[in-house]
């Protein structure tokens, strides 16, 4: 029920974990940005594969696979909604008549294709963000954030700490309910009771965490000085990969090498250049994982 707590950072022996958090975040952000820049389904498919392969190489593939399962209904819903509301396609394959608020509903191939592209894009962005959550040290990120905006960082710190604390509270409450002779309330009623108890305790919990932050002198001295750290080989490799991935996408968008149009009729460039771009994107995204020196925590 409260599986969210399993998606947290844990230092694992992988090149991506061995990079500094800002670089790891930039790498994930580059993959997400790529998905937002390009619309070409082939490139989006390659990006999805690249994110999954990167997660696997970073030993967090099972976490992303878990999310993938949860995301499938959302992906199908995205496609379905687009098919039902889009009026731009020309190739009608089903006429469903008048649906009241939706008006005349004609299902078109173009709407299906564009729905799939949007779903694919959503999936890549979501998984790339999750890759950052699982591989970028949140404390390092918050520290970097504190140098920019201490008060926003305080809120973010409280939230990031409170989420696992409340997750643990909810798990404990659920376990305690199972200890009741009748096994506690089941189904949605039981879940709602636990969520209610967790939420009602959230204020106390947030006060506890805030009190500790206060006692530790959080923000008492203003901006925190940055620690100097030499760039590791992995920092350099992932930073270069992030720049290259975005560069390739921008090039593809501006040169219209990987042009794609869903409406009114589907048209997609499948020239050799697109395949070269796709191969390059995949190779560049995964190249930093080849060097496995110095990756142990």
């Amino acid at each position, binding site marked *: 029920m409260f599986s969210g707590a399993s998606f947290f950072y844990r230092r694992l022996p992988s090149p991506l974990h061995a990079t500094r958090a800002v670089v790891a975040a930039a790498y994930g952000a580059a993959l997400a940005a790529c998905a937002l820049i390009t619309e070409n389904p082939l490139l989006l498919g390659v990006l999805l594969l690249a994110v999954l392969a990167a997660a696997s190489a970073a030993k967090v593939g099972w976490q992303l696979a878990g999310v993938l399962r949860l995301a499938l209904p959302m992906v199908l819903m995205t496609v379905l909604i687009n098919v039902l509301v889009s009026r731009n396609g020309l190739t009608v394959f089903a006429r469903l008549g008048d649906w009241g608020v939706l008006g005349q509903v004609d299902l078109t191939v173009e709407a299906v294709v564009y729905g799939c592209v949007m779903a694919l894009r959503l999936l890549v962005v979501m998984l790339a963000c999750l890759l950052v959550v699982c591989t970028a040290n949140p404390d390092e990120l918050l520290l970097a954030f504190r140098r920019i905006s201490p008060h926003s960082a305080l809120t973010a710190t409280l939230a990031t700490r409170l989420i696992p604390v409340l997750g643990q509270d909810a798990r404990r409450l659920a376990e305690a309910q199972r200890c009741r002779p009748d096994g506690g309330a089941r189904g949605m009623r039981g879940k709602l009771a636990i969520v209610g108890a967790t939420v009602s305790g959230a204020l106390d919990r947030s006060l506890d965490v805030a009190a500790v932050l206060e006692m*530790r*002198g959080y923000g008492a001295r203003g901006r925190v000085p940055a620690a100097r750290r030499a760039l590791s080989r992995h920092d350099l490799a992932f930073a270069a990969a992030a720049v290259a991935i975005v560069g390739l996408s921008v090039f593809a968008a501006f040169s219209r090498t990987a042009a794609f149009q869903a409406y009114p009729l589907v048209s997609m460039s499948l020239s050799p250049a697109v395949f070269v771009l796709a191969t390059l994107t995949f190779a560049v995204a995964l190249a930093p994982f080849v060097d496995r020196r110095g990756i142990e925590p």
Partner: protein
Amino acid sequence: MSVLAFERVGYRYPTARVDALRDVSLSVAPGEFCVIAGLSGSGKSTLLRAAAGLVPHFHGGGFSGSVTVGGLDTREHTPAAIGAVAGTLLQDPETQVVMNTVRAELALALENVGAGAVSVARGVEETSLALGIGHLLDRVTAELSGGELQRVALAAALVARPALVLLDEPTSQLDPVAGDELIWQLRRLNQEADTAILLVEHRLERCLAAADRVIAMADGSIVCDSDPRGFLEWAGESEPALQTPGARMLDLLGLRPSPTGVKQARAMLRAHGLLTAPGVCRERHIVASGGAQPARHPLAQAGRSSLHRLLGKDDGQDKPVLSMRGVWHEIRDGPAILRGCDLELQPGEPVVLMGRNGAGKSTLLRHAAGLLEPTRGSIKCDGRVALLLQNPGDYFLHERVDAEASPAALELVGLGGLGARHPRDLSGGQRQRLALAIVLGGDGEQPATVLALDEPTRGMDRAAKRALARWLSRRADEGRAVIVATHDAEFAAGFATRAVLIADGRIIADGPVAELLAGGWYFTTETARILDGARGALTPEQGAALLRQRMAGEGGPVDARIVEEVRQ
């Protein structure tokens, strides 16, 4: 110049009807090691919160008088400013840790006082090594056990080398080994860095030997402020529940002055000819019912029959109510938490489960209650296991006590008249009893044949522990098997007849409590330490009875009648 000064401080929480602090005045000098003693609700934690500036800044309420910490008046300075002078560790370790990794947690306090990168790195390294958590530095805090979290939170409080350290029961989640280590680490910090320590602790036997001064509180006021020996003299006359077991044992014999630790007690007994030189004579016999087999509770047989009748299984067979065979709990991509555990519980048997933090005690109880499925092995239970987990508050979902449990169950735990109260308005002990009522169930439910409790004495004073031990003994008398996972050997000695020691997921010892606890050094009571485990005497009363027999020149096992006489 004091590092902490209270001047006629009074305080009342916003919704409270009585004052939590009344006219409190005290002064702590640099380098002083002070222990704050008192029963639950006496104002100890509020005193610490006032010293940390949380009272009144965080809690609101009515505040009078003044508190000065390192020259900072808490009315004028925020807890953040006071945090630069005083490191604080409160009770619940889960909310004492605010960052995601241990390294960041330790670095936070240093960064906040403006330390440079080199100082931060050195401080984190040195503190982690000093507290034995170097191996945890890159671990995620969400994955740490309660004991590990407590040590990390303590390290975070100490890392900036504050002039004053405020600690609220820092050993409550630690096993005896880690608890003793922690006290000596505090003493070392106090001696070498001249850090003043203000320590709230219920297990006074653990820390009095290290303390310079003891401040006892009752009803929000300071009722005793003395050196440890003076405090024990006061406790003997005014509040026996605060006596250490060693002091109580010698008090029962009429020996004065009260000893503050094992070494002093042994020296006194030796001076009176009641203890031989170390290692000369080791009488390791079992009290009264000794033997190799696990002892049975005296009323267990009668209770067993009544419970079997209740279950409709009065067949006269001496069958275990819980049987675990070769139980393994292996985590995918992780360690094995239990490794082939075999355990049988007989009806009416009071058993204590002991072991270090992370040994597998809680996991074993969860398997017994069916909350976890063994990856290998089997568990059979004749009836139901009622499991009380560590946080009683987790059981409460309703607005009224009588909505949580049946009237019969509330009567059983002594909460019959409190049905209209809100569960969160109950005291700590009452909340625990309400949680027990919930897991025991009412008339219409399958009766619990096994009662399992996980660390039930956390944060309890000695009087509350005695009351719980008596209540558990009565449940055993009724025929229920009772199994309690605890680090508290004094509590274990008060009710159990059988002890099971678990280490690294394996049951390494299982036998009569007197034999198992008397022979140990860490998993033992202060009485057994003083008497070197002689004749299995574990409690002050048993120890005093043994010494009386020695005075009278009698040998043999400790006579239970003399123990009862001493107790009277």
